[in-house]
């Protein structure tokens, strides 16, 4: 009887541990995936901005202003992913 109870307790502990591990890896994956999209977006954005500055140097200031805001907006996606990660993992 005590063996069965011990086995049940161990199984329950393992299930809880597995759930925690799955939550942790899910949160980490969410953070990683959330950083990939903005990385691609920033690369595309900056590439186009550099091309625009090279083709039209007189508008470089305006292009860089818009580029900086675009980078910051794109980065917000990664920031949201990070916040979801810390809320899932630590709260």
């Amino acid at each position: 009887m005590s063996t069965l109870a011990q086995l049940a307790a161990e199984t329950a502990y393992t299930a809880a541990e597995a759930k925690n591990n799955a939550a942790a890896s899910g949160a980490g994956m969410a953070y990683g995936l959330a950083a990939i999209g903005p990385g691609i977006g920033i690369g595309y954005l900056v590439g186009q901005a550099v091309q625009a500055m090279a083709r039209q140097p007189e508008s470089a200031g305006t292009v860089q202003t818009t580029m900086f805001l675009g980078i910051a907006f794109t980065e917000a996606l990664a920031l949201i992913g990070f916040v979801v990660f810390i809320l899932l993992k630590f709260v």
Partner: protein
Amino acid sequence: MTSTAANPLTSSMQGPSPAVQVAKDLARRGVLVAPVLVGLGAAFWGISGAASVAYGLAIVVLNFLLAAAMLGWAARISLALMAASALFGFLIRLGLIAVAVLLIRDASWADLVPLGLTLVISHLGLLFWEMRFVSASLAFPGLKPSPSQDFSATVTATISNDLSETKEYQ
């Protein structure tokens, strides 16, 4: 049709960096809204909420300033380096934000919920606020609010490029 384009590897931006100007403006706006946000944090989460909101706002403002400083520094060297600094700067700053948050997650004064909310809300809020101002200044240059917020420098910022490096595309 023939068009010319400067070489991004040898071209650099001269004059004041528009990104630094925008970041300073964002920081100024962040300081303006800080009392309101900290008050909201204190009202909903108490002292720890106020401290976490202030910490989150500081992270957001420093992130903007660091991003602009890196872009401005790299743009003075070459446009290609600016592109590289934008990409690697994104990774570096994301890591720095993660370190800054993970360092204080067990602190007694820290509350992760208001901190996370502040990171997202203040980042997007300040950007939308700045975007409205920048779009208004670009659309109506004569209606710029004050010389301190003058973005005419963005127009005077020019690309210096070696014309001998200019390529022609057919």
